[in-house]
């Protein structure tokens, strides 16, 4: 009996082990800063497969029920993290900052568009990152934006865009336990929170440096949202996602 139980447990554990295994999506290109005190940006749009008709119907029914837009890729579907490495290619010690912004399937976040008077105002912070890093000549430094940071970033983006909250308030408050937010008088529940689908990485450096990054995704949707072939997937098999850059209302 105990032997049979051990076998059943083993089969169950093996089956469990196969669920939600992480997938790594490498950045298509490295981000390089060659100028002193320069910056450069790179983006990675996640290879999301096409939405199936039954998923579309369910999403439309939920949107009607809730009275709000419901994304195809929800925050509950994907747990994302970003692993990055900065390499100092120069022969001088330097300081680098790695910032992360991004977009859900509707809106992208660009802090610069919130600046009305460039002389008197600082741009709001990025969705994640911006910590100064000392990188010795020829050395490399690695880091990670964790799953909880990206979940928070996705919610912050929702608050800024659909919620109409200022970026400073959204980004500086800890909204981790938020179950819903208000979108023009209509509550948006957590099951309608949009996931990030595009990761924008920014490297700011005072020496010649390169930033490489990879997105680690745990996909909870069945069937999986990420295309099996990832970045090698044919474009016609990918969901056409073209988030617009969010523009705040004029003051």
């Amino acid at each position, binding site marked *: 009996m105990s*032997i049979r139980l051990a076998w059943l447990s083993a089969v169950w554990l093996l089956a469990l082990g196969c669920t939600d295994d992480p997938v790594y999506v490498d950045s298509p290109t490295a981000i390089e800063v060659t100028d002193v005190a320069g910056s450069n940006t790179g983006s990675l749009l996640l290879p999301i497969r096409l939405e199936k008709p039954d998923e579309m119907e369910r999403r439309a029914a939920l949107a009607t029920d809730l009275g709000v837009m419901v994304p195809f890729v929800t925050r509950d579907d994907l747990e994302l993290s970003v692993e*990055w490495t900065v390499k100092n290619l120069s022969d001088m010690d330097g300081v680098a900052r790695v910032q992360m912004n991004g977009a859900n399937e509707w809106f992208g976040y660009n802090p610069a568009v919130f600046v009305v008077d460039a002389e008197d105002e600082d741009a709001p912070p990025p969705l994640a990152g911006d910590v100064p890093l000392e990188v010795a000549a020829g050395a490399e430094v690695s880091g990670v934006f964790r799953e909880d940071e990206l979940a928070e970033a996705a919610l912050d983006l929702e608050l800024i865009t659909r919620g109409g909250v200022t970026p400073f308030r959204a980004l500086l408050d800890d909204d981790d336990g938020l179950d819903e937010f208000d979108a023009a008088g209509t509550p948006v529940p957590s099951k309608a929170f949009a996931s990030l689908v595009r990761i924008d990485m920014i490297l700011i450096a005072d020496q010649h440096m390169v930033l*490489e990054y990879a997105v680690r995704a745990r996909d909870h949707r069945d069937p999986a949202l990420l295309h099996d072939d990832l970045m090698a997937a044919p474009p016609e098999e990918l969901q056409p996602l073209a988030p617009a850059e969010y523009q705040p209302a004029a003051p």
Partner: protein
Amino acid sequence: MRLLAPALLIVLVFTGTAHAEPRLASKGPYSEASVGATGFIGTSGEYSHPGPAFGLRAGVDVFSWFSLGALLAMEVHEANVPPPPEGEYFQLYQGGADGRISIPIGWVNLFGDGGVGLARISTNVLEKVDVLEPGEHYSPYFAAGGGLEYQLGNRHYASGVAVQWQLLPAFAASQTLGARVYLRYTY
């Protein structure tokens, strides 16, 4: 070398008893649980660290010298690819069938085994170093190995040590080499 010394000691202990009378041993259906360590060798060995391996076997002794079995196994490895990512782990799950030929020497069975099956790798982290193709998760595997089995005083129980080499053709012909200790129960 650290692994070799205990293995040689076990061989010496077992061979020292080889002239003893054979012990009574059950023959028939059996179950086996094993723990050990496995590492990729060759080119793929650069991209992962050795890790723990766990296995469950069940089968039947067709003859006193030959048995057939089925296997479920899992290995855990830390990937060692150029960062990013860094410090990530992957698992290798295996299911297959194997056959084993034994030569009894006293209380000890010297055996050789071989098997085939299907392996699944849990992530695509090795895609970056071309061990995997995009979307590739499965490979057939071919295994060969051998070891020593010691028949315990209870006729149902035996324990042993074994080594195994594996070839995973679809994962850029990766090879693994592992060692395990196991406990076998024969009904």
